[in-house]
């Protein structure tokens, strides 16, 4: 019996090492970058990391400032592009990043992307404040409907996301959720690979992963509308919104668009006749495909072609 159990355990260890090696060699997992919270309370990635997307289809990189993608060659006439995972864009090669496409267009601006999965609207605004140190001429925040809901603590507490308590009018910074456990799970590739299958998703095939956490599309009810209105009122009153333009996801509903309009915020809603073509996959409406990013870049460039941002 003892011999049997020892051998089974030994085989288990050898099998585990083999599986771990196989996953690492074949890059079957999405490599997950580590994060930090800096002195200003901004959650960003540890600088100078790189890794692979699932099955090594392409790699991602974190630049020396702690944001995904490439830094612009110059910081003159800088425009910041702030958003969550669809600006982070790990699911596409770096050539498909909005800032890469825009920087290659050789228009008169330089683009600096600050994207990180899980960023709420209020956190995006905090990031915009933080990025003022680069003296940007404009700041663009890319918004999906879910970003509004996630910003409001009264609509659901999310400890790892920066939220606004509308009742108390205070911002609660997101915390790194179980960083120790995450470090273990992300470093033991087998564990991470099978974590997905344990929750009912086949490893490697999931459109949603830690890096692509798609936000739930929700039906806008009257309560949400009131909260959204209060949120954007707070935004207008507490941030210098004259330099900020909110770029709304093409699938944003009219009622949300109206809330931006009614709160005197500068916004631009992406236009497309076929929003599904923008999607990263048919089920993943939160993230854009390379085509979607290219189309978005064309519209951002066209938007900048105007002399001045039109206040709606």
């Amino acid at each position: 019996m003892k011999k049997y159990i020892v051998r089974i355990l030994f085989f288990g260890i050898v099998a585990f090492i083999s599986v771990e090696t196989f996953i690492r060699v074949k890059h079957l997992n999405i490599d997950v970058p580590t994060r930090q919270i800096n002195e200003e309370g901004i959650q960003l990635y540890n600088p100078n990391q790189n890794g692979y997307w699932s099955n090594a289809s392409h790699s991602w990189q974190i630049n020396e400032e702690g944001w995904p993608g490439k830094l612009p060659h110059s910081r003159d006439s800088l425009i910041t592009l702030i958003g969550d995972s669809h600006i982070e864009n790990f699911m596409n090669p770096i050539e498909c990043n909005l800032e890469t496409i825009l920087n290659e267009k050789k228009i008169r601006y330089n683009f600096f992307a600050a994207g990180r999965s899980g960023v709420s609207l209020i956190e995006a605004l905090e990031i915009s404040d933080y990025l003022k140190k680069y003296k940007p001429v404009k700041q663009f925040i890319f918004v999906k409907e879910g970003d509004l809901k996630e910003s409001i603590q009264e609509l659901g507490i999310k400890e790892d996301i920066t939220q606004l308590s509308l009742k108390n009018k205070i911002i609660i910074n997101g915390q790194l959720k179980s960083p120790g456990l995450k470090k273990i799970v992300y470093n033991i590739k087998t564990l991470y690979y099978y974590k997905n299958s344990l929750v009912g998703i086949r490893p490697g095939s999931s459109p949603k992963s830690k890096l692509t956490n798609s936000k739930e599309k929700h039906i806008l009810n009257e309560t949400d509308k009131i909260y959204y209105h209060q949120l954007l009122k707070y935004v207008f009153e507490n941030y210098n919104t004259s330099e900020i333009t909110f770029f709304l996801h093409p699938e944003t509903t009219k009622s949300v668009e109206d809330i931006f309009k009614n709160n005197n915020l500068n916004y631009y809603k992406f236009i497309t006749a076929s929003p599904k073509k923008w999607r990263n996959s048919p089920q993943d409406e939160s993230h854009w495909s390379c085509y979607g990013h290219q189309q978005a870049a064309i519209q951002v460039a066209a938007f900048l072609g105007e002399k001045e941002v039109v206040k709606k």
Partner: protein
Amino acid sequence: MFFNSIDFAIFLPIVFVLYWLVMNKNLKLQNVLIVVSSYVFYGWWDWKFLTLILFSTLVDYFVGVGLSKEKNQIKRKILLWTSILVNLGFLGVFKYYNFFLDNFIEAFSFFGTKIKGNSLNVILPVGISFYTFQTLSYSIDVYKQKLEPTKDFIAFAAFVTFFPQLVAGPIERATHLLPQFYTKRKFEYNKAVDGMRQILWGLFKKIVIADNCAEFANLAFNNSDDYSGSTLVLGAIFFTFQIYCDFSGYSDIAIGTSRLFGFDLMQNFNFPYFSRDMAEFWRRWHISLSTWFRDYLYIPLGGSKGGTWMKVRNTFIIFIVSGFWHGANWTFIVWGLLNALYIMPSIIFSTNRNNLNIVASESFLPSIKESLKILFTFLLTVLAWIFFRANSVSHAISYIINMFTWNTHVNMDIPAKLFFLISILFLMEWIARKKLFALSEIQLILPLWYIRWVLYLFLVLCILFSAGKQQDFIYFQF
């Protein structure tokens, strides 16, 4: 609980440790553990149907006790028929009621009479056909005084519910399995190692071959009008591999798991696709069911004692009943009928026992004649499986017609990896064809342990990284 689930991967070691390290001193406790574990195993799927198993267990136990006391032949018959009616009654209600009702309504409407019937909205309890047949074997054997009725209720409940084979067999005979619950089990290293090998091989067959083949077989059968003839041929061949690897894979895991607990279950598959004729195929396919029908139906009907006509009649009965056992659908009945027709020449000309040994028993490769016979038998089974898999008889016929439309272009993307994996299956089973399963006595072929471990690791990696989309075990529905 499915064998190919994380739940089972956690459940099995827990039961194993409790069984050998905590309760190993007490046989009764070990049997209690088996009963409790089996109820958990079954209840994981749907606890409500545990009452059915419990009821069936109680009825057959008390029928057995009654038979041991009763000398009056009429009363003994009544007791036996109580067991038969209760067990077949469950099957009738849950499995066949709606089928008969629909067919009666259709038959009456054919003659212009419209009748209404209330069909039952019930789901089929998993494994009902398996455990009812197993308990029936007990009552019949006790009635025929082939077996001493048990007075140990726990041992009997463990025999009925033994979780490795509860939901999809092998259908054990009481004379073989029940006595194993009376005797003290001793942990045997070699038996346990062999059990693990059989589990590994079963998982490979199920998760890697069956589940991968299922994806393409499903595509072909669900869209048979859209695919070319050659694609449909491939689809039927994929289903042929799917059903073999799905069911024999389950049996391997069941037998292997039983061995971990010191039990021996009967062999259920003996490399059936290496058969040289249909009679041989049926001696090697789902052996526990074929022998059940032989012992409890074919022989009581007169077997082959009454001349050729009786043999023919009984063979047809056996195959039709066997088809019907698989499911309440005409497709299964036609499948059974087709197999009866296949086997008929060998019954009439008494050649059904020509191939009792394994093919190429004295050489590594078969002769050309043997190869052609194997190929022909295989193609006959492929054709029959189409009826088994199709949604209806008309679907099967249209599938076969479409299959024979001349078009060599395969309009389905089938990864080369799948053919490679099937080749591994084929090669390993061929090498081990004289053994109980592909990895049985592997130490004789690969004497160096680390070489064996490389093979095991290769299979583990295939299971983990080449798994097909998870499918239910086909035979669960029966």
